[in-house]
């Protein structure tokens, strides 16, 4: 059932992409409406300037339309969009830096903080543990956080995470692994014992 859902979703994106490529404005609008929110939220993780982020996201879409004929069809449309937005924001930052005569930064920083699903927590013990986990997560280096976000919140594959962060597969895997490893280590409790057990199984 799960695979079925996923297939329909990807098929839809690719169908939209192909129609868009053929000049179908409706498909362009549908794709825009589908992902605009996600892209804005992701973009806002890098920049406190909401207006600039909106501009970046809109420019990404504008370019897709303008250069649709020469664009390759991405494997995963969402990953392509996220990545395009990230690149554009990174460029914006570099440009601002250049014009401010400050040495350029290597990359932009993911300034995002995870929050807590309070609505789904109904007892105090859980609330405490979740709060602690959340703090650990938010204390992670920003790259690890971003990798976790892309992998588990945006549902990208490890390959796609690697591509977006411009690292190889192994490094992306490490980023993800180290992120959770720290949680496992620091979260003392049954957590760690279980990890030991499960790694024994492997």
């Amino acid at each position, binding site marked *: 059932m*799960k695979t079925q859902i996923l297939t329909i979703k990807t098929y839809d994106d690719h169908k939209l992409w192909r129609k868009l490529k053929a000049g179908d404005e409706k498909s362009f609008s549908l794709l825009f409406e589908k992902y605009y929110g996600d892209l*804005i939220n992701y973009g806002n993780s890098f920049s406190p300037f909401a207006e600039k982020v909106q501009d970046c996201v809109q420019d990404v879409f504008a370019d897709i339309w303008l250069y649709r004929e020469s664009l390759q069809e991405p494997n995963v449309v969402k990953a392509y969009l996220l990545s395009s937005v990230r690149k554009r924001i990174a460029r914006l930052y570099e440009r601002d830096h250049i014009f401010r005569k400050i040495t350029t930064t290597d990359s932009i920083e993911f300034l995002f903080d995870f929050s807590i699903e309070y609505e789904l927590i109904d007892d105090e013990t859980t609330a405490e543990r979740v709060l602690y986990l959340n703090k650990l997560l938010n204390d992670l280096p920003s790259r690890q956080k971003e990798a976790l976000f892309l992998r588990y919140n945006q549902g990208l594959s490890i390959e796609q995470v690697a591509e977006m962060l411009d690292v190889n597969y192994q490094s992306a895997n490490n980023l993800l692994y180290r992120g959770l490893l720290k949680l496992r280590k620091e979260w003392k409790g049954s957590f760690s014992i279980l990890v030991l057990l499960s790694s024994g199984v492997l």
Partner: protein
Amino acid sequence: MQKRNHYTELEDFLADKSFQLWVLSKIDEQGWEEWTLEKQQRAKLVEDARLLLLAMKVPAHKISSSEITAALQSTWLKIEVKENGSKTIKHNSVKYLKQYWAGIAASLFFGLISLWFYNNQFNINHTDVTYKELIEENSEGLVEQTNNSNKPQIITLSDGSSVLLQPDSKLSYPKIFAGNERKVYLCGEGFFEISKNPKKPFIVYANEIITKVVGTSFRVRAYSDHPNVEVLVRTGKVKVSSNELTGNSKQEIVLLPNEALRFLRKDLSFNIITNITEDKTLVSNVGNIEQLSFEFTDIPVVQIFKTIEQAYLVEIDFPKDKLKDCHLTTSLSDQPLSEKLKIICKSIGNDTSFEMNGNQIVITSQGCN
């Protein structure tokens, strides 16, 4: 089907869409609840994964559908602007453009289109188009000017356009622009300021690239140690296409303010660079003339002449005593040199005129009104 029976790590659960759906939306499509309770050890792992998911919420700033609709509209507007060029920019969407370029507006020079062309000094293969070939194509009877000195030379063309030709560069141009187009041929580097004439587009031929403008100013730069041709636009609209002589199918690319294009001479392909500052070579090659402002507000004429001297590397001779108390407020950003001088002279007074002779400019004046 039961892939999850082999789940041993938190990651397995976190990445499972159906698991996420169950934890976060309480939609249990696959009977996670029952499955979890089957084994105690499993239940522990599931619980940990669940807690982690609860701690990993992404604060979704809900974007209303009206906001999305508005965003979509402004995106179509952006597309229109990019497609139609500067005219639409002025009328429809100054606002969006302003936002977009706000970051660099402060350091924007004064309405220039800058183009950089890079020559390839390495082996020239069959598709490379040389200056000589280009000249031979033209039958208008061209004048060639070569700058063998070590400082830029100013050339004024018959239509009033000016070209600041850099050392080791040459420009061929007809004495008088006949016909419907103004064609010039460049080898090296030059800063162009084109007098506006929508009926007679101005065309720069350089290497494999043809650059077409209607009237504005831009830089063409052709260092001989680069395998690329690069075109960089500051303001206005520039059309770039490959020369038919390359044997390539004719592809035309429209560049708008602060967009750039890199033409790879090796395989004749265009790469659009939507952000010029990404490219350090482009940024570092900004010339004097692009950095000086030509917006003057109540500025002594003497100072204005000094600015022009610095920008064009010319010498201006003027009656200092007669002009020492003259102030001007004027915008000379998007004007060729001769046009700038004309405007200044006219502003000073009726009995003021100028004469250009190479890098020497002589102003005659009886003082300001």
